[in-house]
């Protein structure tokens, strides 16, 4: 090995150690639930001091659209405005129970030191999984985050599957599990806490053609955590 090459290698390793935050990392999201589906995921790195949601604060209109109908278009605009780095819909659609999807992010040359991940849970009125603004690790390794389901606080958890997914429209847009219950009269009125909070879970019932809910208590309930998010820094 000549001296010039050795000098170049030293320079390169210094350059790798230099940045305060990892520039390249992967984010693997696993749906841990027994029978809840995730709508398209948004995996976003964003600057210090910014966030997509905050427990105890009202949901933004963009978060509401994601939580009630699975629409991440508004949040994509939000992240773009922040100068963020993101991967939209790494699963290519719904992420089924037990399945995983991976997003590779490159934040080289940006100030995007925080990571957030969101997606709606189906069948629910406005539940979403949320990883909120963790500091992207800098040292090589794998970092595991188990995250709970939040309630956007924007819609009554009536548990009626009626296709209602637009912001402000009551009801659950879809039940991918195929249970197909109908005729529920409504499990609840508006949330006592209208701000973002940890979801209290589904009520459900065992009546496929009536009862208060179109959610099946034997199938669709969950216990936290609902998602495992593994950040890998090479």
């Amino acid at each position, binding site marked *: 090995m000549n001296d010039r090459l050795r000098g170049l290698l030293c320079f390169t390793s210094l350059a790798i150690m230099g940045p305060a935050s990892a520039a390249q990392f992967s984010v693997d999201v696993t749906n*841990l639930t027994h029978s809840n589906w995730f709508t398209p995921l948004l995996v976003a790195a964003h600057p210090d001091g910014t966030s997509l949601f905050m427990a105890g604060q009202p949901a933004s209109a963009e978060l509401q659209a994601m939580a009630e109908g699975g629409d991440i278009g508004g949040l994509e605009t939000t992240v773009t405005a922040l100068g963020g780095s993101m991967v939209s819909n790494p699963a290519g659609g719904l992420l089924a*129970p037990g*399945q995983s999807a991976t997003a590779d992010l490159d934040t080289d040359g940006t100030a995007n030191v925080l990571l957030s991940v969101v997606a709606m849970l189906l069948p629910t009125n406005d539940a979403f999984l949320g990883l909120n603004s963790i500091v992207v690790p800098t040292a090589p390794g794998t970092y595991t985050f*188990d995250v709970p389901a939040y309630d956007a606080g924007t819609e009554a958890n009536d548990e009626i599957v009626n296709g209602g997914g637009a912001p402000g429209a009551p009801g659950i847009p879809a039940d991918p599990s195929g249970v197909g219950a109908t005729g529920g009269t409504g499990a609840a009125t508006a949330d006592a806490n209208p701000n973002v909070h940890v979801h209290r879970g589904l009520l459900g019932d065992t009546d496929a053609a009536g009862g208060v809910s179109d959610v099946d208590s034997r199938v669709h309930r969950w*216990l936290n955590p609902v998602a495992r998010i593994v950040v890998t820094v090479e």
Partner: protein
Amino acid sequence: MRYLKTSSMLGVVAAVVAACDNNDPPVTPPSAPPPIAMSDFTISITNLTNARPLSPVALVAHDSIYSYFRVGEPATAELELLAESGDNTDLIAAATADSNVITTRQGAGVIPPGGTESFDLSIAANQVTGARISLATMLVNTNDAFTGLNGLPIASLSAGEVLGFTAIAYDAGTEDDTEAAATIPGPAGGGEGFNVARDDRADFVTMHSGAVTADDGLASSALTSQHRFLNPVARIEVMRIN
């Protein structure tokens, strides 16, 4: 080639130094191979639930390859046996036969709610790097719920240090969660444990979704509100002694 040359020169220097030494070269007496240094660990598990006995524990120390389950993949037959009936025999036997496993321990018996059991584990020091610990136990009075640890690395622990974890409940995915008396072993149901049929909604491991119970509208359930649970269901501590 430059490295080779450098090594040769160092060798010459060492020889010169040795030649200048007036003392006789030390005599190394023939001896038995040095004893293998062991690192000792204590692993304890505490049942945090209200009314869920934990079945006799299967504890496995292993390398980075062994894994007794993965979320999203079908449970092995030995995990199915443990999760449906609480019988750890096959999981221990499979681990013992696995070249990626360092050692195993079996629990002395059922750990009742609030109870704790501790295990001592000795691992050869040269095997600690890369060593991981897994633990499996059934939540009794369920169809196929289990909890434990899944490949916890222990090499970074220093002597006297304790790692504490709370464990969450998984569903083996091998049996429909009917909660019917005939299908759940244990004091609440007294029913069947293992059954080779796989009749859950999907045949792979996920998180457990909890117990509905008869008190919450599932009339065919043998369970009452006493059997409901939230995560975490157990606390596990790993302490390195030396």
